[in-house]
């Protein structure tokens, strides 16, 4: 199974509530995926700044003096916000790649969850309500976000196996389903220079889209390409700095419901996830068509 929720806000007035709305939706999808949960929240960093979200299984040790060490390595000031096993490092955008490289030397054990101008990803093993509480997701504001509750099929129940997967700057993907040709696609993407953290099928889906975007394709074209090149069952929801997209495989047995009002576009694996959204009674509610790409960009 697995549960997916997503919210793309059109009404700025709702932005402070993004995290609270997504948390409520995510917890509703607990029985579709009680193994682990994750959430990607997009909120603009300051002008000229970037955010790197990192995770450690020994946060007290790994995050101690990390800001000072990183600032010294970069010769630039950085700020760090520690949230349980994750930390969000804010730094000048131009230093983002240098910082990632410095991090791998300074703290070899930490994992980069996401990097970009807007994205922050928090994910852990455990019930969605516990994961959301650990990272205080309900207090976060933002423009759009994606959440996932996982019932593992293709790889182990670990933090790195939880969704969302981020394989490019400000990009992320969540998946309900299972891919059957992921080993072959992973080999090809590795040849093209993409790197992988896990043996997970979804990470291949994410890297496939990131690779397309890297070669200059639009989000719409990258999503179209999943229909021809990826084999298996999938409902994908993807996030980019400005956008939010949905695509389902041609068989479309993995459920999906969408709702749109003047205030938002929302996605849920089931209608249950959407019932507490404002104005849902009068929203346009529909099931996304199979093999059809939907995306919204601001």
């Amino acid at each position: 199974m697995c549960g997916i929720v997503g919210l793309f806000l059109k009404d700025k007035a709702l932005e402070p509530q993004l995290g609270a709305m997504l948390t409520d939706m995510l917890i509703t999808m607990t029985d579709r995926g009680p193994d682990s949960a994750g959430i990607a929240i997009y909120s603009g960093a300051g002008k000229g700044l970037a955010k790197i979200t990192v995770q450690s299984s020994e946060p007290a040790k790994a995050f101690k003096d990390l800001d000072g060490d990183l600032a010294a390595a970069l010769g630039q000031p950085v700020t760090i916000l520690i949230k349980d096993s994750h930390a969000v490092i804010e730094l000048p955008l131009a230093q983002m790649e240098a910082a990632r490289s410095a991090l791998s030397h300074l703290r070899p054990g930490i994992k980069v969850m996401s990097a970009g101008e807007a994205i922050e990803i928090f994910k852990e093993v455990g019930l969605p309500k516990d994961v959301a509480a650990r990272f205080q997701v309900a207090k976060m504001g933002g423009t759009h976000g994606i959440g996932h509750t996982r019932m593992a099929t293709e790889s182990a129940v670990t933090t790195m196996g939880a969704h969302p997967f981020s394989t490019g700057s400000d990009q992320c993907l969540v998946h309900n389903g299972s891919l059957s040709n992921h080993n072959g696609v992973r080999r090809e993407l590795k040849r093209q220079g993409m790197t992988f953290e896990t043996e997970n099928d979804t990470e291949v889906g994410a890297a496939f889209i990131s690779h397309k975007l890297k070669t200059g394709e639009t989000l719409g074209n990258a999503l179209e390409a999943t229909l021809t090149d990826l084999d298996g069952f999938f409902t994908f929801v993807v996030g980019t700095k400005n956008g939010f997209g949905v695509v389902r495989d041609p068989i479309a047995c993995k459920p999906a419901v969408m709702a749109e009002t003047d205030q938002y576009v929302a996605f849920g694996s089931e209608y249950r996830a959407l019932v507490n959204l404002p104005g849902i009674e009068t929203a346009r509610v529909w099931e996304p068509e199979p093999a059809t790409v939907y995306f919204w960009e601001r």
Partner: protein
Amino acid sequence: MQTFDLEAEGLRALNSSLHALKGATNMTAWEVINPKGAHAIAAGVDAPVDITVRGSTGYYCAGMNKQATIRIKGSAGPGVAENMMSGTVIIDGDASQYAGATGRGGLLVIKGNASSRCGISMKGIDIVVHGNIGHMSCFMAQSGTMVVLGDAGDALGDSLYEARLFVRGSVKSLGADCIEKEMRPEHLALLADLLKRGEADGKARPEEFKRYGSARKLYNFNIDNAEAY
């Protein structure tokens, strides 16, 4: 009228109250409020009662229904009226995947659109869809009647047995062994009756439909193919 607040009282309490109704009962009218997409609402009812669900439902609403008339004043999630035996289920909105799957009897009416696999493996149920149906609908459908006022998606009636399919709009593609057939007077009479019972008689006339059925090449033993078996 018995009003049941699903959010306050819970699904198990609702379904056990409905399952307790046997044969003649004087509690014949039920209303379920706050369904909020919950699963298995009014599944397994076996009594001649009227149940109105005020809102949208999740998986398997009205599954295995016998005798009851169940109205959904919203849209229905996957597997609505799955394996229905008798009675009537009427959905004001849309229905998700595999509506009426394996249904053995009764009438399912969907006033909006139905998505993929509507009527898959149907075995006697009648289904009237006012809108469109999605891909792979009536896959391996054995008996019963499907009436679609709108269009049908890809692979309609793939590996069809003896179900009768009527589509007023376009058919994106026919599945293996499904062919268009001539419309005879008895089919027009059947359609007129189903359109009326499906609350669609003001929307379409029987003459506007095309009939599809099995070419009967796939499921009959063919001696010329004996070596292939």
